[in-house]
């Protein structure tokens, strides 16, 4: 590859041809401010805050879009550049609400950071907020269009990464706005509530529906027994919310922290992740044996379920009928667990802690009350738990650990990896292999299905039957596999799909995630946790065995169908 030599702020640098000024500057440790730029998206160059002086150019150039040329001389921090950037920031701030103190992104906002870095001390222009209404139409995501700075990163995340096309631009120039499809409410758009737009947003224009107050009210209610389940991807990322590195908070300390903020019982979604493997693995084997609909799709990711119901209603039969681990847990905690503990299920307030915004919607689905009650009463995202932790003032370096409560707290390494793309597939293969062959699986690591590649595939020989599997994360990748199925050309038997890039570790409810590189760090941490688990196969989970012995009796049995399986409905969305 040809290299190009240039000088940035007097420093000589050599970068591959085709690089931008922004990339070249990064090479030599020069930070150029950005807002509309996103490392995993195409260049937009609409915010202009990255402007630089380029010798020989009369006008300032946007560093994010300007390709480097041989001998180019760039100034990124001249008074002229600083003044232009300040003016750009002042113009953005002139219609941005002055609500930093009450904003969900306070201290985690790219615009706020830049206003600080550039010493913006006054509003240079007349302050005029657009006065648009908040969109609270979905149970998962809240849009506050007044805060939008029109960078269009959310549109890129929604349309390119996810191929959901829920968001677009209405009008043009000064009147332009980001709006849900056809200018309607988000609930009327094809939005699948994955929340990837939240990560993409540099400011607080898109957030989860925050439900901290509902949790505190339940804790304060003496008649409620507040029980929680933690999803596999949460522990890794919660550390980031309290100033630690991904994976750095030990599980027992996390559990102790949850007890501190008011949970009466702490259980684990990993338990039902293991259970999912038993039910889903058996469902796959049944479909293979009886000529059922194949390929079978996993059904753990509610954003993916929404996507399938919205864009592929003709393929719903391919979805595993297994509820997601969250909803399996919800149905069991108010039946099996309540019985086992001698607790009145009516008093149980079931809270799940999820890396996901779509889980809030999933818990509110009308069919999710097979326990006779609302199976999951409240879903809090990793970010909301992070806020509760910070509110509580807990010093996690000094907190003594605590273990999970009984009957639905034990889990295996197979459940842990549910949090990463390919994890459900790998966990299923570990179990299915042993069930079918009757032999012990020596190497449990199916590395072919791991990692950030958009679509991964593998083959497993089960006593002479070759099973072909595929894994996709990010819905635009899912779309490719789905179109193959629709065309009748899919070579696979089993397909894992996670709505979010990287899987649940990159879920819409996780700490604000600014790049795929950040997702990879969390993925690495998840496999370390798996390696450290004594038991790494779901069917060896001792509490799951007790559940089958005492309550469910057999996989896919009567009780399982009543509590653990569901069916899907076409969404019939108009504005696709």
């Amino acid at each position: 590859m040809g290299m190009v030599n240039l000088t940035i702020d007097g420093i000589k640098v050599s970068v591959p041809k085709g690089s931008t000024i922004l990339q070249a500057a990064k090479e030599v440790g020069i930070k150029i401010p950005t807002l509309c730029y996103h490392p995993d998206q195409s260049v937009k160059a609409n915010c202009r805050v990255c402007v630089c002086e380029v010798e020989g150019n009369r006008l300032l150039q946007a560093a994010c879009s300007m390709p480097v040329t041989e001998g180019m001389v760039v100034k990124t921090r001249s008074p002229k550049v600083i003044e232009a950037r300040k003016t750009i920031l002042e113009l953005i701030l002139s219609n941005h609400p002055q609500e930093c103190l009450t904003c969900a992104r306070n201290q985690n906002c790219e615009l706020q950071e830049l206003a600080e870095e550039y010493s913006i001390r006054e509003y240079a222009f007349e302050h005029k907020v657009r006065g648009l209404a908040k969109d609270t139409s979905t149970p998962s995501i809240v849009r506050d269009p007044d805060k939008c700075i029109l960078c269009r990163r959310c549109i890129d995340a929604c349309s390119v990464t996810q191929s959901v096309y829920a968001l677009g631009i209405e009008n043009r120039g000064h009147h332009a706005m980001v709006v849900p499809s056809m200018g309607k409410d988000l609930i009327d758009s094809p939005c699948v509530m994955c929340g990837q737009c939240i990560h993409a947003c540099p400011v607080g224009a898109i957030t989860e529906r925050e439900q901290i107050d509902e949790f505190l009210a339940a804790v304060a209610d003496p008649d409620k027994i507040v029980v929680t389940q933690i999803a596999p991807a949460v522990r890794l990322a919660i550390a980031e919310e309290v100033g630690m590195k991904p994976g750095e908070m030990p599980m027992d300390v996390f559990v102790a922290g949850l007890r501190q903020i008011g949970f009466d019982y702490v259980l684990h979604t990993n338990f039902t992740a293991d259970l999912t493997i038993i039910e889903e693995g058996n469902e796959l084997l049944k479909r293979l044996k009886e000529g059922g609909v194949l390929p079978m799709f996993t059904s753990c990711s509610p954003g993916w379920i929404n996507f399938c119901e919205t864009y592929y209603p003709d393929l719903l039969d391919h979805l595993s009928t297994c509820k997601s681990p969250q909803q399996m847990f919800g149905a069991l905690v108010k039946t099996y667990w309540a019985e086992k503990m001698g607790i009145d299920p009516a008093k149980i307030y079931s809270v799940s802690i999820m890396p996901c915004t779509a889980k809030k919607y999933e818990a509110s689905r009308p069919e999710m009350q097979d326990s006779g009650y609302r199976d999951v009463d409240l879903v809090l995202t990793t970010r909301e738990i992070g806020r509760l932790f910070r509110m509580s003032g807990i010093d996690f370096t000094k907190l003594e650990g605590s273990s999970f409560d009984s009957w639905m707290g034990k889990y295996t390494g197979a459940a842990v990896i549910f949090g990463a793309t390919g994890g459900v597939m790998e966990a299923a293969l570990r179990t299915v292999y042993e069930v079918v062959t009757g032999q012990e699986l020596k190497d449990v690591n199916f590395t072919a299905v791991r990692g950030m590649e958009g679509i991964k595939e593998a083959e497993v020989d089960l006593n002479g039957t070759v099973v072909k599997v595929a894994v996709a994360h990010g819905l635009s990748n899912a779309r490719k596999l789905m179109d193959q199925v629709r065309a009748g050309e899919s070579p696979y038997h089993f397909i894992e799909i996670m709505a979010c890039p990287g899987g649940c570790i990159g879920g819409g409810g996780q700490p604000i995630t600014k790049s795929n590189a950040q997702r990879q760090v969390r993925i690495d941490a998840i496999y370390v946790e798996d390696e450290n688990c004594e038991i790494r196969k779901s069917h060896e989970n001792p509490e799951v065995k007790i559940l089958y012995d005492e309550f469910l009796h057999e996989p896919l049995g009567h009780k399982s169908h009543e509590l653990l399986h569901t069916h899907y409905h076409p969404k019939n969305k108009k504005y696709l």
Partner: protein
Amino acid sequence: MKGYKEIIASYANVPGGIIEAYHAIQKEFSYLPEEAILEAAKVFNLPVSEAYGVATFYSMFSVKPRGKNVIRICESAPCHVAGAAEVVAALERELGICMGESTQDGLFALEFTECVGQCQATPVITINGKPYLNVSPAKIPEILAEYK
């Protein structure tokens, strides 16, 4: 809403045909009804969010119902200096509506526009794209009469 599907279908194979189709729809209905945008998205294989984006990007298109004859008044500087404000006042008075509105009988709509390139004879208005030059308040009733 009769015939909108046929109109759109007739542009299906034209490169960039969605804009042509929208013009044709507007000629018929004076605005772009929701059904037409949904149909265009289908025919041109675009997400609705994009088809809607195109429909709202161009000021010539309207996604809100409006009067049959669209009167546009230039709000750029040359027309402003030449007395566009008086023309606006006269139009509003004559039609009994404000800028951005349509008459009850569905006959006229009043809109602002950017420069239409006729600065040699300001102020300028256009009706359904036809320019009227050197317009004064006194000429308004006569111009409107053509369309009544």
